[in-house]
């Protein structure tokens, strides 16, 4: 018998409920209001007063309204049919909601109960299995979707029955297993998991080391991210976080992409909804949407659901990782998520930490990033969740708490810069402040020399040094004037401009330039480095400028041409003549 209670107070979406019997922290309850059932989560208990955050508007809610607690925490439903879905932060299937406007208290089932899946058994009768073991497989949009022993099941089980190859719906019993005490359990294709608890279906979490190709040159070349790595993109508004994030999610070489929009601009969410179904995955040639799940909470949807959305997305990511897949999780923006935490903490009248964020913000952020990673599953298969969050620092100040705390846990830092954005140098990733800690990992270096080339990292370091030198000289020219420095200095400066224009800058809106495969990146890096290593003779700085402007123009035209096409080769020839 679950606990029941009565509403005692309301301040915006924080509701105080009086109860007589036990409740647990983070337990879900439903509040009756004008015929609607409003979902809420317990966030604080003082004596008989339970503070719940309501995931919906509390308009019209009255003292005395009845509340029903359900006995479990906020859970997601895991099973085949999640791919291509558009969910809200509470895993409602948004497409199943009729009407243009969201109705309060309307909840929809996230999966399809009628659809038949082609099931293939992987386990045999007599197998001993533990939670997360692959019992069978269905084909979900060309991905091998594993049906697993539910993560909640503790200890070892004996497979008593397994369904033969065939077509079943998600609620069909596909296996019967027996626990150590001899009790049998029916297993379907669906299981539930509380979003705030990490799924631990792996035996080991080694350091990640495999390059995750994104097709974005300034990432893959200068600040690479790896399968199972973590990264974040901070930047003042208007510097191109969204464009960069969308580029990565469209192009990255992942099996599954999950996009969590926590408090994002609705029109940006719509852009994903309308773009992705049209786009083709550059790696498989299939529809991009087939491998994508969107968890969308626009900024005007209730704040508590916004807080939940990143957890919902992460839990789904962990589910797919347990199947041995390469998952990319993108969250935009974790600042708005942190703001939701701040808003709630403020309503609870907690003493504020730095910038009025809750005191445990750093722990919350590090726990969340900690859920990503490269894993070795119990059956020795490998899998990963690569997590990239965007951060919207207040006033562009990178010393604010969300940025600072994220910096401590994320291994890649893609710092978007106002100045670059103002000068339309996109992506506006600052080449000096940004970093990838993976470049220091010996296992990553070894991997790169095996899959790309021995001198790749050496060349990457070389262009970074040249960019740095170019920046120093630009400052000197600003102080001393064009004539105040030797011609050599101008050459060094223009070499850094060459790297900037050809490697760092990339036109996300051009069909060809938007995505650069690693082979082409290698070609361009080799070309640019060779041009930089060349000795040049000029009489004055105007000659230097004219020459390099021509050179940059040709290389940029190359970036716009199909790799090794006639026009591409033609530009290559023009460089050779120059």
């Amino acid at each position: 018998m679950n606990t029941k209670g009565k509403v005692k107070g309301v301040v915006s979406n924080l509701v105080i409920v009086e109860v007589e019997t036990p409740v647990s922290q983070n337990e879900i309850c439903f509040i009756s209001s004008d015929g609607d059932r409003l979902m809420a989560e317990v966030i604080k208990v003082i004596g008989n007063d339970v503070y719940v955050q309501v995931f919906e508007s509390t308009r019209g809610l009255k003292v005395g309204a009845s509340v029903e607690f359900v006995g479990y925490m906020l859970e997601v439903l895991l099973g085949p049919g999640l791919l291509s879905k558009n969910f809200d932060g509470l895993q409602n299937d948004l497409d199943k909601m009729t009407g243009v406007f969201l109705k309060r208290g309307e909840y929809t089932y996230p999966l399809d109960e009628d659809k038949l899946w082609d099931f293939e058994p992987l386990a045999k009768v007599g197998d001993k299995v533990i939670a997360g073991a692959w019992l069978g497989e269905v084909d979900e949009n060309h991905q091998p979707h594993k049906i697993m022993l539910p993560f909640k099941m503790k200890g070892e089980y004996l497979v008593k029955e397994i369904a033969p190859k065939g077509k079943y719906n998600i609620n069909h019993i596909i296996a019967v297993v027996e626990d150590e005490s001899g009790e049998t359990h029916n297993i379907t294709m669906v299981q539930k998991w509380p979003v705030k608890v990490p799924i631990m279906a792996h035996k080991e979490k080694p350091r990640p080391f495999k390059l995750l190709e994104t097709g974005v040159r300034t990432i893959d070349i200068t600040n690479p991210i790896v399968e199972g790595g973590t990264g974040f993109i901070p930047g003042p508004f208007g510097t191109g976080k969204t464009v960069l994030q969308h580029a990565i999610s469209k192009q990255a070489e992942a099996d599954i992409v999950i996009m969590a929009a926590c408090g994002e601009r609705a029109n940006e969410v719509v852009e994903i909804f309308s773009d992705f179904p049209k786009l083709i995955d550059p790696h498989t040639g299939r529809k991009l949407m087939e491998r994508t799940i969107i968890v969308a909470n626009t900024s005007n949807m209730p704040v508590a659901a916004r807080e939940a959305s990143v957890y919902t997305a992460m839990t789904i990511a962990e589910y797919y990782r347990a199947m041995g897949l390469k998952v990319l999780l993108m969250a935009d923006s974790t600042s708005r998520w942190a703001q939701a935490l701040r808003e709630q903490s403020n309503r609870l009248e907690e003493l504020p930490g730095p910038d009025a964020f809750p005191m445990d913000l750093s722990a919350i952020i590090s726990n969340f990033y900690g859920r990503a990673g490269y894993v070795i599953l119990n059956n020795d298969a490998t899998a990963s969740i690569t997590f990239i969050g965007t951060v919207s620092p207040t006033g562009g100040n990178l010393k604010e708490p969300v940025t600072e705390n994220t910096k401590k846990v994320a291994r890649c830092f893609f710092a978007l810069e106002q100045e670059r954005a103002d000068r339309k140098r996109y992506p506006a990733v600052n080449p000096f402040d940004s970093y990838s800690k993976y470049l220091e990992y010996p296992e990553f270096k070894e991997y790169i020399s095996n899959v790309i080339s021995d001198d790749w990292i050496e060349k990457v370091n070389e262009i970074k040094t040249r960019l740095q030198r170019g920046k120093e000289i630009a400052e000197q020219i600003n102080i001393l004037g064009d004539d105040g420095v030797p011609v050599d200095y101008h050459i060094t400066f223009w070499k850094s401009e060459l790297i900037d224009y050809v490697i760092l800058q990339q036109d996300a809106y051009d069909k060809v330039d938007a995505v650069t495969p690693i082979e082409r990146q290698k070609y361009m890096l080799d070309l640019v480095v060779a041009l930089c290593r060349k000795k040049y003779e000029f009489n004055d700085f105007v000659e230097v400028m004219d020459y390099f402007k021509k050179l940059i123009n040709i290389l940029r035209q190359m970036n716009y041409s199909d790799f090794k096409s006639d026009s591409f080769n033609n530009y290559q020839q023009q460089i050779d003549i120059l």
Partner: protein
Amino acid sequence: MTTTKAFQKVYTRITQITKATCSLNASGVGNDELALINGKLAQVVKITGEEITLQVFGGTEGIPTDAEVVFLGKSPSLKVGEQLVGRFFNAYGEPIDGGSIPEGKEVELGGPSVNPVRRKQPSELIATGIAGIDLNNTLVSGQKIPFFADPDQPYNQVMASVALRAETDKIILGGMGLTNDDYLYFKNVFSNAGALDRIVSFVNTAENPAVERLLIPDMALTAAEYFAVEKNEKVLVLLTDMSAYADALAIVSNRMDQIPSKDSMPGSLYSDLAKIYEKAVQFPEGGSITIIAVTTLSGGDITHSVPDNTGYITEGQLYLRKDTDTGKVIIDPFRSLSRLKQLVIGKKTREDHPQLMNAAVRLYSDASNAKTKMENGFDLTDYDERTLRFARDYVTKILSIDVNLNTTQMLDVTWKLLSDNFTPEEVSIKKELIDKYWNK
């Protein structure tokens, strides 16, 4: 909306009065519900057991502890219909133009949000004739975008020209803390242009109580939603000034003893602003709500919570700036941004638009470098001289807000300025476009 019904329970014991709120013991009251306190409109903002706290829109001045309090059993609403058109209303939706009270369907303010999967991707350009918008930061129907401006800048004049030039079915003006002069300015401009037949205005002037401002955006957007949803119309909403709205939020939260967040703003500022701005939408049936707002800055400071949160909610921002060389007011091409422009430029406008626009802004940025060089006393190169000449022409012939061109004219003039001052190699534009448009 301020009428009472018979047999309503009347309370007469107020237990607490602050500058913006009153509290009393009452039962059966819903969150967000309206009440009348001695005839003054108030709204429930907090319920703790029997104790109800109300924000009093007109201010609590003169309210006695034995005031008559009647709960209205509903949240704030507006009667919507065609009769709103051409009229001026206050924050409660009452006429302030001497006309009759309009009749219509009563709709609650601040209704539910649009299901994101039912939204349509914005794709229609709203031309304004101002190059700082149409050329560099193109406005798209369904977009939300603020002007970030210091109080001394002519943002209301620019908004009025945008209103008159934009090809939309309805314009809804939401004025918060407007000076009386600005209110009369809008009234005159709209009347003189003969545009009243497509304009609805909700105005709270500086002399009206501050807390009333909280109702204005919801009034304006509820009316907008009526025209966009029921009539499938293209609606443009102008909100000025949202900083005054945020200040009103801060006043109420302060009077409720809430712990202030950054810049003394309430912790919920982001959600409060997002609720308003996210009303901007392109509906699948063709109606749309586009929001242009004004956020006044203090000394250009965009790190303050109000512009900062606004920037993270809206789809771009337009900065007004006076160009010191020419004295012209322009929309700053560097810091301004329209996030949705990609959806229309080069698609609804000519193919050369995106690259040409970027090239011009890049060259204009080179001019500002040249200017710094000049100010530091260095010799200018021939290229520097040419960028400076280009910049002057670019400001006077294109960017200045008093220039009124259509988008194709803007593109043609820009090509001419580029060809007059530069070589094709210097502008870094795709070759196909150069071949087609250079020297045209």
